[in-house]
């Protein structure tokens, strides 16, 4: 991946502290296996969601996260239960990484009462107050001021919490993103803006949409440090996440991480992705797949055998199958649900 091979960074004061890519992390076996199984859960869940969409069991929009798994799994490893997460509409992976129940996520996709939003949210609008996952937002860029608000509240209440605010490469050209950057730095808010640069905002490549090519530098005029990270490598992501979380917890204000990543599928289920070549997709899948690459690291280091990894895959598939069954068995919401939850007090 050309873009990610030379990670770059911009510091608040020292602007050229280039960090080195490190796949050979000292992460222990438990951690490696946990990353592997978390990424695989997202992969298998999304594959199943894609199938169920094709079968007509899921309707509306469905934006799959396949290919980008290392980003959320690596980021999630660096945070704890003080911290809040918010993202856009490509949100299934984020929810699973936050520890939300795959059954509840899948049932929301099928529009059932057992879904996280009782079927009223759908794929793009899901939340879990318990897991501090604040959506699931369908308007490109809107989650960025909201995530900044999560950080504002954390700072006001003195919780030491950090807001992980994800956005895509397409969102960086929305005005509200820059309003949020300014406010976050002005008020030293503990927010990490994770720009998931998967190279395409819907069907338009970053090159054709963005005058600024180095998205991690977009906070530079405000003084927000930024860093470009190989988002296909979970260990590299984790390392960058630790650094950014530390920065925020120390009260130094916001941080930008540009994750160089790739989505294997189209923008949504209805997108055949003809704006890019098959070779490009194949190259990413074959050379840079985050799950395949991590499995090699695990096997090469002798932490697990290939057979043992297959056992993990089996377990993950069982979880996904259980979720898929639940999502088809859970009842459809009653018509009376139409009128609940509009207001607390009508």
């Amino acid at each position: 991946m050309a873009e990610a091979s030379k990670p770059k960074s911009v510091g608040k004061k020292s602007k050229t502290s280039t960090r080195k890519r490190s796949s050979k992390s000292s992460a222990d076996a438990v951690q490696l296996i946990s990353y592997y199984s978390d990424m695989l859960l997202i992969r298998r869940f999304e594959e199943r969601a894609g199938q169920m969409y094709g079968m007509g069991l899921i309707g509306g929009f469905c934006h799959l996260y396949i290919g980008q798994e290392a980003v959320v799994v690596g980021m999630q490893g660096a945070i704890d239960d003080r911290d809040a997460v918010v993202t856009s509409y490509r949100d299934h992976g984020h929810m699973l990484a936050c520890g939300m129940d795959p059954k509840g996520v899948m049932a929301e996709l099928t529009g059932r009462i057992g879904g996280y939003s009782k079927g009223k949210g759908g794929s793009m609008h899901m939340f879990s107050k318990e897991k501090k996952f604040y959506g699931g937002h369908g308007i490109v860029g809107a989650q960025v001021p909201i995530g900044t608000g999560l950080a504002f509240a954390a700072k006001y209440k003195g919780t030491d919490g950090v807001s992980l605010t994800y956005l895509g490469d397409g969102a960086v050209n929305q005005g509200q993103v820059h309003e949020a950057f300014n406010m976050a730095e002005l008020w030293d808010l503990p927010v990490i803006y994770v720009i998931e640069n998967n190279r395409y905002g819907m069907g338009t490549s970053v090159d054709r949409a963005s005058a600024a090519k180095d998205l991690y530098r977009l906070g530079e005029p405000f003084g927000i440090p930024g860093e470009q990270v190989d988002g296909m490598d979970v260990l590299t992501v984790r390392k960058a996440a630790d650094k950014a979380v530390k920065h925020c917890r120390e009260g130094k204000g916001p941080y930008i991480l540009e994750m160089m990543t790739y989505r294997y599928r189209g923008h949504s289920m209805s997108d055949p992705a003809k704006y890019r070549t098959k070779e490009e997709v194949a190259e990413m899948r074959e050379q840079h797949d985050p799950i395949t690459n991590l499995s090699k690291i695990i096997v090469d280091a002798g932490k697990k055998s290939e057979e043992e990894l297959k056992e993990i895959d089996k377990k993950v598939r069982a979880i996904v199958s259980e979720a898929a069954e639940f999502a088809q068995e859970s009842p459809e919401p009653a018509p009376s649900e139409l009128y609940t939850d509009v207001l607390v007090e009508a």
Partner: protein
Amino acid sequence: MAELTYREAVAEGIAQEMRRDEDVVFLGEDIGAAGGVFKATVGLLKEFGPVRVRDTPISEQAILGAAMGSAMTGLKPIAEIMFSDFLAVCWDIVANEIAKARYMTGGQMSMPLVIRTANGGGSRFGAQHSQSVENWAMMVPGLKVVAPSTPADVKGLLAAAIRDPDPVMFFEQKSLYPIKGEVPDGELVDELGTAKVLRDGDDVTICALAAMVPRAIQAAEILSSEHGIEATVVDLRSLVPLDTKTILRETAKTGRLVTVEENPRLCGWGAEVASIVADENFWDLDGPVIRITTPHIPLPAADELEDATMPSADRIVREVSEKID
């Protein structure tokens, strides 16, 4: 009883709630050091400090994003959008995010926040600083919409809005800021969704909101003294929830309904009130509903033109006396 201006009542209402609840924070442009562009928030920065009373950049989307994010995580923010026209700049956060969050979370989250804004005409500010946009908010499911006409209502309804678990759009009519009125001493908390009958008459029921309320009352006095028409005047105070019980009762009593609004003609709130009355009270009506609105034009700046645009007491008198026998 103390006599306060409408603008002083704003600051009093906010201060009352900030004193009792640490979770109430106040964000907006020029609200702190400057005391508000309409001087409606004077003294709050001094009393509550810059952590709770935050001057913001001119970034309406960031202001409402900060309010929403903090409301989702336990604070009770009050966000000021300086002129209601500027709601168009951040309507995404209002209409797509704040209003829909509770529904889209399946009831997991509530949105206890207030968006205060200076609304309406009469100040010669022209088309981008004078609009009356409470009907925009009324159209969006998931928002409560309040627009007081007196200092006492400002204080009491603002306090109620801040304590309310739902998002409340609080429209202050900017030409009313200097008016004075009696405000009860001590803690004052009103009830949202309740209209007030301000004048009782048997011939016609006039429903009005915000700056149209004093004009409706003035018109009612002239209708009585010069035309022998006795009008009931209802101050709606809140569009969502709408006090349909009071509207229907007072309309059934007189058999005639007049709505007076600053909204441009098409889809102003008066159309909704007329529709509800037509549905529910059709057989009690003795004649057509009279809607008095601004024409469907942008609001002009020049004195004569703006005065000709906004419903005046004279125009209410003329329309009512011509159309009611």
